[in-house]
């Protein structure tokens, strides 16, 4: 130990002062060395107002990332007038919002508390130990965010565009960044909408269209559902437990129930949502909903229960198909042709006054070439002829009489009858045949004429938020995208075409991006624009983990230091969603044109950077020619970013966003819904747009152009006989620490057994387990060949599981970031059991190339 210590016991005051003077400590004795505090008044007791804070402020906000509904509400803020400190307390509803009707949900409330999550990342982190992985100490140092961003920019310069992967949803900033750098954008999140998005693109919306807005694609929908005025709905596994908590949907289902709408549910799980809103619940074998849908098509077409006028005027039902090529016949100008009953010849579909929809084959000659053609409705009729209710009953284990009854009731309620689908229901990216089910659903909704009709599938209209490219057109075309992207989207021309030429924000292929990262050497740098879900929202994260270990650069922009941190070189702190302004349209109840805005509740308490600012910095540094109005790279000529100002000005609502927010941040035009108007404006063949039931693009890649029966990817085999169903607790969103790092939500989850896997009594008996036992779930090694990671979980035995051949898993728990106080190492991870897909296998089953996240059988054994 240093000398002088033994002496200092006897230190005189003089010695002491002398000593501290020589060491410099005395400096603080003459004038106070302020560091983070500053004097505003001389020292002394200054009187203050009494109450510590007042609740006078309510700040408009719009939910995001908690679900796709995006309710508008107010955040109630307590303010201390003395120190100007503020704290959000809770939410209050906004009754004028057509989505939320003045309500919000538990997740919205939890967002208020997550602003103050002690594990929020407040500084940028930089790794000093290059060795990545869960077992290596990254040697993090704190770095100024600005410096970190500059270092990242320098690092990115070392890579070719095809070596960089941006993992991000397609917001306007990411899109522009990825396009200007010429790098692949693929997202671990958006695929949960993917099947819906692509099928909707191919049948309904044909992007880009006049309402193609910079906020519609993150949730990948332009079609909402007018539950409130519906008379009949069929839910194919639509009633997931996660939907039990979505206020922006619940309020409408409540209205439907009050108005006497009949809701028929097919689901192997009896959810509280079905308890509340279903009129009839039928158990169904997982992955066989398609059979029921095909049989319904059969009945409705055979018995001519369809909406004739709608089919003739607004769909491709009368359009002619060449029976040889199985492609539609088109005029030179590209218009569909119909067979005229009066003139007995083919005419452009919009010209023909009396098109036939059934019958044929008809013979026609174009340019001396002979064709044998049939109208599309007849083509579908022929295709589904074999799909009788009896046949469907054998496959689905739903009674034949039920299928017949439901099909007829559904058709008779037209056009107020529809089948809604969002994401994780049976028509989501769940099975290898889900894209066909999704297609069948759009056809069924078309047969009733519910599309673009009140009480049916309502379409976004008369609102538009521009993209960055609409504000300032790039001076030259963006560079080519990588020819062989790491998510293999080039192997799926149907969706690649949409992504490349129509909507760059279209969902990526995360069902294969992990495969690509692991199996190829294409990628060297990964930039996660992490929507706070970590790696463990992904399927087979173990494959991504292994691949990230070999990356040269991994960057994560995140609200938390989460599991991606094990592999990141930099983690950049992001603001909480309530610390950002919002501007939104009302996609999930688009009955009326409406804009809604939100203001930041507070300044971020740290060195955070918003995504827009970060993207602009990188863009200006690495692709300045695309980020300046004249391509000069001059920082004073940066492209404009004020998309909301333009939207408001163009609509004549306000001259800018500030003015709009001052007026309350809400605008709606409650005019009557004009049935079948929007489909003309956004559908195929516009200006006389139509719904397409027949998809040429599928035929071009050797799939049937209309839905046909197809099995799941593989069957149950031996002990691997439990079909994996996945849902979420109503108060949890993916692996988002905003919710799973909340100790109260964890408690609510546990009290409701949603940290367990659910099986029914019969299954429990068969495998010999009791309530609360620990079990191990394992994949069949034939189908998950690499990096298996069995899952250990507690079992809950419940009669809500209607079948003994299923097991229900809860998504979003089992986070691996141990630094998260509550979330770290709690529960199990469903994703560990879902294989990343070999694109060559996917290609054989699914032209959209989506994830098939529930197409898995597992074994269950007592641990």
């Amino acid at each position, binding site marked *: 130990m240093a000398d002088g210590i033994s002496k200092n016991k006897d230190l005189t005051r003089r010695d002491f002062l002398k000593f501290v003077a020589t060491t410099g400590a005395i400096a603080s004795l003459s004038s106070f060395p302020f560091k983070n505090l500053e004097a505003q008044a001389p020292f002394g007791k200054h009187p203050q107002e009494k109450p510590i804070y007042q609740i006078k402020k309510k700040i408009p906000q719009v939910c995001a990332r908690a679900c796709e509904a995006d309710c508008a509400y107010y955040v109630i803020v307590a303010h201390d007038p003395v120190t100007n400190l503020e704290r959000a*307390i809770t939410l209050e509803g906004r009754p004028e919002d057509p989505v939320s009707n003045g309500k919000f949900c538990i997740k919205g*409330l939890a967002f*208020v508390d997550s602003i103050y999550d002690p594990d929020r990342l407040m500084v940028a982190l930089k790794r000093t130990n290059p060795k990545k992985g869960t077992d290596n100490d990254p040697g993090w140092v704190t770095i100024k965010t600005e410096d970190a961003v500059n270092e990242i920019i320098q690092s990115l310069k070392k890579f070719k565009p095809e070596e960089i992967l941006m993992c991000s949803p397609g917001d306007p900033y990411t899109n522009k960044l990825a396009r200007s750098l010429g790098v692949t954008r693929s997202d671990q999140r958006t695929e949960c909408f993917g099947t819906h998005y692509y099928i909707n693109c191919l049948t309904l919306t044909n992007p880009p269209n006049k309402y193609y807005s910079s906020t519609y694609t993150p949730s990948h929908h332009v079609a909402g559902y007018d539950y409130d005025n519906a008379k009949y709905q069929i839910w194919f596994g639509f009633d997931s437990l996660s939907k*039990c*908590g979505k206020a922006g949907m619940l309020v409408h289902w*409540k209205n439907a129930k009050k108005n006497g709408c009949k809701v028929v549910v097919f689901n192997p799980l009896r959810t509280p949502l079905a308890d*509340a809103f279903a009129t009839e619940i039928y158990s169904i074998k997982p992955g066989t909903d398609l059979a029921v849908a095909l049989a319904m098509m059969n009945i409705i077409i055979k018995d001519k229960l369809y909406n004739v006028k709608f089919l003739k005027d607004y769909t491709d039902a009368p359009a002619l198909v060449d029976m040889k090529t199985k492609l539609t016949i088109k005029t030179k100008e590209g218009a569909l042709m119909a067979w005229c009953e009066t003139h007995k010849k083919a005419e452009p579909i919009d010209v023909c006054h009396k098109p036939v929809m059934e019958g044929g084959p008809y013979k026609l000659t174009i340019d001396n070439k002979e064709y044998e053609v049939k109208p599309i409705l007849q083509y579908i009729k022929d295709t589904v002829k074999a799909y009788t209710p009896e046949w469907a009953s054998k496959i689905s284990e739903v009674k034949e009489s039920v299928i017949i009854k439901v099909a007829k009731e559904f058709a008779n309620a037209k056009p107020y009858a529809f089948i809604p689908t969002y994401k994780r229901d049976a028509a989501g990216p769940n099975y290898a045949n889900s894209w066909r089910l999704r297609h069948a659903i759009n056809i069924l909704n078309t047969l009733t004429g519910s599309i673009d009709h009140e009480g049916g599938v309502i379409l976004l209209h008369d609102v538009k938020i521009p993209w960055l490219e609409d504000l300032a057109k790039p001076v030259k075309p963006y560079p080519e995208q990588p020819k062989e992207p790491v998510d293999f989207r080039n192997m799926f021309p149907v969706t690649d075409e949409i992504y490349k030429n129509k909507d760059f924000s279209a969902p990526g292929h995360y069902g294969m991006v992990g495969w690509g990262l692991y199996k190829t050497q294409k990628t060297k740098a990964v930039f996660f624009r992490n929507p706070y879900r970590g790696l463990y929202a992904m399927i087979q994260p173990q494959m991504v983990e292994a691949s990230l270990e070999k990356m040269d650069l991994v960057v994560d922009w995140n609200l938390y230091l989460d599991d991606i941190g094990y592999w990141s070189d930099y983690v950049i702190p992001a603001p909480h969603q309530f610390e950002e302004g919002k501007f939104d349209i009302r996609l999930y109840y688009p009955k009326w044109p409406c804009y809604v805005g939100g203001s930041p509740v507070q300044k971020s308490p740290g060195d955070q950077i918003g995504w827009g600012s970060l993207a602009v910095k990188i863009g200006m540094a690495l692709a300045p020619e695309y980020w300046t109005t004249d391509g000069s790279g001059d920082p004073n000529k940066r492209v404009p970013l004020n998309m909301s100002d333009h939207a408001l000005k163009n609509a004549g609502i306000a001259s800018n966003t500030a003015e709009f927010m001052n007026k309350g941040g809400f605008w709606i035009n409650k005019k009557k819904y004009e049935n079948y108007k929007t489909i003309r404006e956004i559908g195929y063949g516009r200006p006389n747009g139509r719904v397409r039931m027949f998809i040429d693009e599928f035929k071009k890649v050797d799939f049937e152009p209309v839905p046909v029966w197809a099995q799941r990817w593989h069957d149950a085999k031996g002990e691997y006989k439990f079909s994996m169903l996945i849902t979420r607790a109503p108060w949890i969103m993916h692996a988002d620490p905003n919710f799973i790092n909340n100790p109260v939500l964890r*408690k609510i989850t546990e009290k*409701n057994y949603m940290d367990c896997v659910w099986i029914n009594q019969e299954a429990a008996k068969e495998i010999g387990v009791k309530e609360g036992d620990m079990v191990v779930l394992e994949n069949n090694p034939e189908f998950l060949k690499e990096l298996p990671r069995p899952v250990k979980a507690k079992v809950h035995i419940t009669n809500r599981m209607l079948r003994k051949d299923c097991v229900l898993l809860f998504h979003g728990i089992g986070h691996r970031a141990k630094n998260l106080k509550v979330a770290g190492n709690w529960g199990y991870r469903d994703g560990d059991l879902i294989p990343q897909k070999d694109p060559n296998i996917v290609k054989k089953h699914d032209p959209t190339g989506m994830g098939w996240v529930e197409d898995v059988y597992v074994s269950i054994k007592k641990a």
Partner: protein
Amino acid sequence: MKTYAILIDTSYCTGCNTCSYRCIQEFRSHTQATNGLFRTFVAINDGGLYHKRCMHCFDPECVKVCPVNALSKSEYGPVLYDQEKCIGCQSCVKACPFSIPQYDEKTQKILKCSLCAHRIAENKEPACAEACPTGAIQFGESKAILGKAKEIAKKRKMTIYGLSEASGTHTYILTIGSPKKAGYIDVKKGVPKIKKSSIESIGAMPIVAGAIIGGLKKLEERKRKIAEENKNKD
């Protein structure tokens, strides 16, 4: 004076627990909830949704056994709880036939819903009722709420839990089938004994209660206005 009650139609409840969380934020009782203590909680049980919360009995056992008058039956319905007075003896925990009061070992006090009396005084509904996304939880004047409960029960063949349990309560929970199946405790039934009280008694009430009555009146007025407006719209 008028009395107030809560109606929970479980056939509109999805178990989302927005009510529970809103309640926690109202009372800033996050720490207690983390330890499993909730004023109100919805359990998603196999047989239905179990709302565990104070029933606000007409003739509450908890009030009778509380040695320090920390619990009191208000004239307008709710069984009020005064944390300052509570000595943590847990007599109420043992006495409550519905097993509602929960003992918080950390604060050595109990935790129980008081029907958001402070909000009612400010002309607001209880936090849970305001937040419920589907309107499964409704608050209002006892007579009207009971009338509504009976009407729904008759129309949709539901059972009213809380109507005659413990000789009547101010909480009516509508269930499909037996409430026991959903998790509600089988409590001895009796003929409801409603205390006769009148609006004249306001003068004798403490200031807080006076404020509450003022608030209730305003709430009634507001609800009436909204109903009228809606009627006009139709």
